[in-house]
């Protein structure tokens, strides 16, 4: 019943997608589509933008205005789209590498600037597409192709990073907490400003195989064992928190959206300014 809804938003001729059997990314894509469905937005009015990576292959399968950009730059392209045509609903899909490794600067600036873009970070703790190198979210001691002796890098906590940068809506869920995830994405889509949802995905092929989680099943079980609602998490002692991940909405406060502010505070008071250019620009040169 839900599958039908999902498929109605997809480019069916492009399926099956390239993701490995069982990959968490596909589960998230389903959730996204159900959330979009709930908004009632028209396909024509949605732009879906991504960077490069397994997760970033998402736009190719979705029947919106879709854009698969360069690695890490999803939010910067998205900013140009949203700011120049605020009428479009803009969603940005990124991997953990995309969003907070190479794309970290655009991520924090999007959070600061507050254009109405929904950023969905498919965090599978690894660079999937390029063959399993570690990312800024790869767990301590995990094996990746570039941490043959175990990872020693500290992780980003993506919600903390987003909050530190000023984002107004920040949440986390996982690929396996469907349909709860649908709702969180829906709320993020509805938020008038920049919203971030970190979605813990899983990559048994590049991450799991090196870390005793070879099958989707073992990864799903692992996720089940570590994720718990924020409230429950907060009740734990520091020691108990160690290997747990809180999920839910961390922040949701109203903010002033950037493109609207620009129109109100910059364009409206100045558009009637006398300028020699006026004569040249009588006819609107584009029509949004």
């Amino acid at each position: 019943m839900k599958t039908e809804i999902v498929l109605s938003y997809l480019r069916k001729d492009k399926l099956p997608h390239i993701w490995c059997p069982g990959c968490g990314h596909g589960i998230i894509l389903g959730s996204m589509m159900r959330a979009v469905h709930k908004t009632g937005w028209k396909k024509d009015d949605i732009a879906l933008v991504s960077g490069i990576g397994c997760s970033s292959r998402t736009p190719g399968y979705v029947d919106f205005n879709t854009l698969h950009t360069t690695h890490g730059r999803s939010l910067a392209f998205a900013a140009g789209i949203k700011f120049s045509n605020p009428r479009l609903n803009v969603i940005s899909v990124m991997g953990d590498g995309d969003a907070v490794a190479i794309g970290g600067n655009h991520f924090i600036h999007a959070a600061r600037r507050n254009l109405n873009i929904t950023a969905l970070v498919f965090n599978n703790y690894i660079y999937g597409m390029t063959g399993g190198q570690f990312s800024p979210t790869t767990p301590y001691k995990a094996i990746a192709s570039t941490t043959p002796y175990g990872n020693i890098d500290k992780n980003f906590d993506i919600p903390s990073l987003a909050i530190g940068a000023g984002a107004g809506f920040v949440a986390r869920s996982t690929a396996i907490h469907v349909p709860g995830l649908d709702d969180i994405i829906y709320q993020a889509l509805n938020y008038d400003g920049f919203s971030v949802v970190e979605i813990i995905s899983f990559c048994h092929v590049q991450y799991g195989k090196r870390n005793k989680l070879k099958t989707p099943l073992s990864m799903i079980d692992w996720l089940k064992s570590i994720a718990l609602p924020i409230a429950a998490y907060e009740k734990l002692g520091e020691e108990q928190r160690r290997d747990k991940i809180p999920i839910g909405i961390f922040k949701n406060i109203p903010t002033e959206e950037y493109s609207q502010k620009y129109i109100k505070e910059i364009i409206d008071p100045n558009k009637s300014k006398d300028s020699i250019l006026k004569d040249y620009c009588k006819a609107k040169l584009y029509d949004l």
Partner: protein
Amino acid sequence: MSFRYEIRLSGAGGQGLILIGKILAEAAAIFADLNATQSQSYGPESRGGASRSEVIISDEDIDYPKAGNVDFLLAMTQEAFDKYGEMTKNGGIVVYDMEMVHTPRQLEGVRVFPAQITELAIKEFSKPIVANMVALGIVINLSNILGIETVKEAIKSRVPKGTEEINLKAFDLGYEKGKELQGL
């Protein structure tokens, strides 16, 4: 006269065809003192998709490392069979996995052998992953290009520590299977 033997190992990502390509090349170049190159094609970026591994063995320097005149094709998927079957040279050999290739075509001037490869791996070892070693055994037997011991040396040097035994067994099984196919 110099010789050049081209082997194309084709199938899907994850079937371990690149590994057996490397074993073949290593057996030839290090243990048999011939020259050999192994190269491959990938799917999108580094993962998934179709896989093609090519081994050239020669007693001379190998200029061109890509297969042009394929002497031996191993086809581990239908797609691979369809795509590369025709490209095998006159007098060449094609072996395909019966489990995966359901509609083999006729290929003129080529000896085509259907073989239970994945099936055998599952049946004998409950490990589809060693299908590649079974296939390697068949390749070695049918091609007759390298000595069996040479190849075993190369297997030992290339497979993960602790898995030598099962891999060698699978190889042997394939080798025997090869004899059987020849006997057809």
